[in-house]
Every structure is written in structure tokens, then in C-alpha cells.
């Protein structure tokens, strides 16, 4: 287990804990907008996991996927936020 493996293992455990906390908020979130924020953070964690995997295997093939994941997350949350506010106005 070189230093590299240990660091990547630590990152994996940290991201797993972060995902668990975000899923807790996703499940419990009293309102729809809490769930939208939790989904955004969950997508950021997926992006982080992609980056960790890229560092570990010394390749940069998934960079475009990282960009697309962050953009799709943005589109999703903006659409939901827009529709939630609609029936009030």
C-alpha cells in the first residue's frame, strides 16, 4: 500500500461519508428544494469521485464527463426551482 493508495482510500472513505450525509438530507429534506440542493451536492460528489479515479489511474479521459455532470446538475436544479416558484406567482 503505497502513499498513493492510502491517500486515494482516504478520499474514497471521505466521499462515501459525504454521500451518506447528502443522502440523509435527500431522504429527510422536508421540502422539495432541500432535495434539489442535496441532489446538486450529490452530483458534485460524483464529480469528485471521477476526479479521484482519474488521479489514481493517471488518465484524463473523464474530464468531459465531469463537465457534463456539473452542467446537467445545474439544469435540473434550475428547472425544479423554476417550477416550484411557478404556482405561487
Amino acid at each position: 500500500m503505497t502513499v498513493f493508495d492510502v491517500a486515494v482510500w482516504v478520499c474514497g472513505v471521505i466521499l462515501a461519508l459525504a454521500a451518506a450525509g447528502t443522502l440523509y438530507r435527500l431522504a429527510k429534506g422536508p421540502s422539495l428544494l432541500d432535495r434539489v440542493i442535496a441532489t446538486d451536492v450529490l452530483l458534485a460528489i460524483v464529480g469528485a469521485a471521477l476526479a479521484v479515479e482519474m488521479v489514481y489511474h493517471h488518465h484524463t479521459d473523464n474530464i468531459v464527463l465531469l463537465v457534463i455532470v456539473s452542467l446537467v446538475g445545474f439544469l435540473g436544479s434550475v428547472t425544479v426551482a423554476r417550477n416550484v416558484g411557478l404556482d405561487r406567482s
Partner: protein
Amino acid sequence: MNWQTVVDVVALVCLVVGSFMSLAAAVGLVRFPDLLSRMHAGTKPQVFGLLLLLTAVALESGEPRMVPLLVLAWIFQLLTVPVSAHMVGRAAYRSKHLHEENLVADELRDVVARAGDESG
């Protein structure tokens, strides 16, 4: 201590700190009392964590021509996350998510009222 180990160590430190940022975001999401404060936790660590992770990827890849794409990925995130948080905050403010007791000052109330009068 040749050059490659220095790059490796810096990349690993960036990786771990970036992951800690995601953990901070998750803890913030769980612990904060209401929606408007949870947005702080949901957006700020996300952007900074991504910056650290992308620098780690850039350092490890070793190809300078990847850097513009990484900067583009970060700029996209930097532009889109505040906009989505603003939209969510706007929808939250106008719907029932507002807990008055948590607010210190509320400058938006008269703006919303005025906007309401003009459109009403």
C-alpha cells in the same frame, strides 16, 4: 526528492482537501437549520473542492494541453452553481420555506411587496 514525488504529494494533498470540502458540504447540509442556510453549504465547498480536485488531476496528468479543459470545467461550475442557488433561494423565499426567526435582516421583503403591487 525528485520532481515527480513532489508533484505526487501536492496532487494527493489537493485530492484529500478537495474531498474534505465535499464532506464539509454534506455536514453543512445535515446540520444547518433551514433551507436558506443550507444553500451556503451546498454551493461554496462544491466550487472550491472542485478547484482542488481539478488541480490534482492537472498535476497528475502532466500534459499542459489538458489545463484549458480543466479551467473550462471549473469556470462552468463557477458560473452555474451560484445561478442555481439563486434560483432555489428565490423559489424558497417566495414559497413557504422562509423561517422568519432565522433571519437577521430582510431587505427583500419590500422589494417583493413592491414587485407584487406593480404586477397585481
